[in-house]
């Protein structure tokens, strides 16, 4: 926009506001496209709305694990609670998640004779996070994991049924919901919250936080009837939060522009495993209201997704079960290129450096033993996993130089025999057998944006910190919208825990705030 034009529109805007009044204009003409200009004018002068359309004690943004946990606790403490959600359905990333939550010292561990403790958990968290974790926050989730699980089961009514292992944890420590999905926790949370009298508004987007002259968060400007992703849709409205606002709006994995600002490598060649609404504008709105952000450039790529299927897909379950049982190949050279059992970051970085999809494959024996029939069946049905009778066929399909590939397989097989990989130090398991038996199952791998470690700065009370290094009054945050808990790399299954623990803390503390007016 040139200076002349912006000055001109400034004049128009001002005279417009004079005649109509900002609030009436924003509410009545929201759909005409003038709304954006009106909003800018308002934000610029930072004024409170002349009239609040609705009032609640605590307003929560987002219906994932974090938002729902916060809503239940705030309501439990007696607050009148509104939860807004910009999408048409509840659950965000939480409802598509794998339903696995890290809990130190859980009963399944005890039954299996596994020694664990919050201290050991804390060590694992810091190791994965390159010690960039804010220690107080990491310690909070490690210490409160047991209580969080009890609450999910006994108060909320979710069912966890088994113990699973995740890379990076020093022991088997993660518990899985009965339906192996985050919905196994989100839906009971949602039902519970509704039964307690928490109010929900869907297709309602938070546009900005409203702060008083003293800088206290006092409410939100929202857009009702918002139709994702159309920013012109819906109608502006103002809700007052007597006590506090809790941001539980998740990460920004689906926002290409924002993630490229943080990590320029992650352009539109990379899809995301996240739900489409993970676009992070609420994080930015918080920053505009004075909240501080941290580690926004630590964005986790999932190295186990396939370009041949959408979303999270079935390949992750194929790939992760197969690492240590079959080789991963650079199709251009026909050679292995990375430690297959290495962590998410190491593997994704290597693939991104190559710049094209790579291949993992296994033979009949290893695949049958490791990969669930369901995964294989679904992955083959959608074409992402392919079956080959010979290595020649496999090489031809993916354009791999055959001689090099055969040589590499022979080398891999010799390492399997010796249970030692001098090239990349891949973990080779006792039951791994050489890759020899037809048919062979293979798929292409290309990383997807999976998790945002960074976000808003919070303290151990889930209170958001401002750029003045002081708590930003009236604002709490929990879950993927925050940063610091996980440091550089989130350890698998710790997001769910983070959301429940800090969601609960945020909800309790928000309800405890004194009414501001």
């Amino acid at each position, binding site marked *: 926009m040139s200076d002349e034009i912006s000055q001109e529109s400034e004049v128009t805007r001002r005279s417009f506001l004079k005649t109509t009044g900002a609030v009436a204009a924003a509410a009545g003409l929201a759909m005409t496209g003038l709304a954006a200009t009106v909003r800018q004018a308002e934000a610029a002068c930072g004024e409170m709305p002349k009239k609040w359309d609705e009032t609640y004690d605590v307003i929560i943004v987002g219906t994932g694990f974090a938002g729902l946990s916060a809503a239940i606790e705030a309501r439990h403490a007696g607050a009148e609670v509104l939860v807004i959600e910009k999408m*048409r359905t509840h659950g965000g990333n939480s409802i598509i998640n794998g339903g696995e939550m890290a809990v130190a010292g859980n009963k399944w561990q005890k039954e299996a004779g596994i020694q664990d403790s919050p201290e050991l958990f804390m060590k694992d968290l810091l190791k994965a996070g390159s010690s960039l974790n804010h220690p107080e926050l990491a310690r909070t989730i490690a210490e409160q994991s047991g209580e969080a699980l009890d609450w999910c089961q006994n108060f909320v009514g979710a069912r966890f049924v088994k113990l699973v292992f995740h890379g990076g944890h020093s022991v088997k420590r993660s518990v899985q919901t009965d*339906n192996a999905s985050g*919905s196994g926790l989100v*839906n009971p949370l949602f039902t519970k919250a509704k039964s307690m009298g928490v109010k929900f508004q*869907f*297709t309602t987007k938070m546009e900005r936080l409203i702060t008083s002259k003293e800088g206290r968060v006092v409410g939100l400007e929202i857009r009702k009837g918002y139709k994702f992703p159309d920013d012109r849709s*819906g109608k502006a409205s103002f809700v007052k939060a007597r006590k506090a606002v809790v941001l539980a709006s998740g990460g920004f994995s689906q926002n290409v522009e924002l993630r490229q600002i943080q990590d320029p490598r992650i352009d539109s060649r990379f899809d995301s495993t996240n*739900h489409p609404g993970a676009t992070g504008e609420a994080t930015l709105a918080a920053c505009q209201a004075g909240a501080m952000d941290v580690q926004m450039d630590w964005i986790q790529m999932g190295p186990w997704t396939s370009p041949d299927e959408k979303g999270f897909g079935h390949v992750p379950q194929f790939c992760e079960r197969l690492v240590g049982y079959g080789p991963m190949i650079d199709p251009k050279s026909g050679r292995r290129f990375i430690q297959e059992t290495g962590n998410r970051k190491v593997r994704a970085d290597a693939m991104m450096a190559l710049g094209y999809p790579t291949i993992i494959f296994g033979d009949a024996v290893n695949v049958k033993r490791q990969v669930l029939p369901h995964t294989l069946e679904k992955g083959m049905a959608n074409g992402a996993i392919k079956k080959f009778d010979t290595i020649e066929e496999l090489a031809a399909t993916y354009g791999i130089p055959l001689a090099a590939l055969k040589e590499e397989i022979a080398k891999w097989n010799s390492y399997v025999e010796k249970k030692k990989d001098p090239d990349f130090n891949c973990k080779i398991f006792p039951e791994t057998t050489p890759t020899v038996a037809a048919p062979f199952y293979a798929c292409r791998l290309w990383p997807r944006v999976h998790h945002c470690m960074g976000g808003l700065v919070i303290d151990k009370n889930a209170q958001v910190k401002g750029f003045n290094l002081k708590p930003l009054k009236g604002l709490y945050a929990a879950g993927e919208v925050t940063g610091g808990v996980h440091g550089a790399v989130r350890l698998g299954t710790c997001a769910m825990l983070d959301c429940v623990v800090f969601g609960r803390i945020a909800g309790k503390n928000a309800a405890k705030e004194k009414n501001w007016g």
Partner: protein
Amino acid sequence: MYTTFIPARSAALCTVAALALLVALPAFAAPKRLTAAKPDNCSACHGKDRVLPDGHPKTAKMTLAACLECHSKDSPASLSGKLPLSHRHQLAGVSCVKCHGTTKKQTPVEAAVCEACHEPAKLAEKTAGVKPQNPHTSPHYGTALDCNVCHHQHAKGENFCMQCHTFNFKLP
């Protein structure tokens, strides 16, 4: 059950008339809905827009069953996805009032209204064989997903699953 998604158009219809001037309406996209319109009286809602092709039999006394004689489910002339569900309802004898009640201002209906006739568990049973996945139950929402997420009555339906999956459901 949470409130039904409000299709942008019904919201638009509720706002000031001036708005209509600002929104360019594609043909048939947003005809003004008249509660009294009979099945054969296309122009009551569509005005001068020609809705039916030349030589189409008179629809005056047609029922949905009669439409389906030519527009059978799997034929190229299938109306699945082309005819708004509100028309199918009307042709099957479900009037506007049956869903919306007699209020002056038409408001979007709650999923519970749909469910009074289309019981979620029964629907899921009916579509159990749909490949690659039953559209009426999912690991995420079970059978609790609001109908309107996919089936908009007065606008083209949308396949919500396609956000993350490649389930090419044909949507009525």
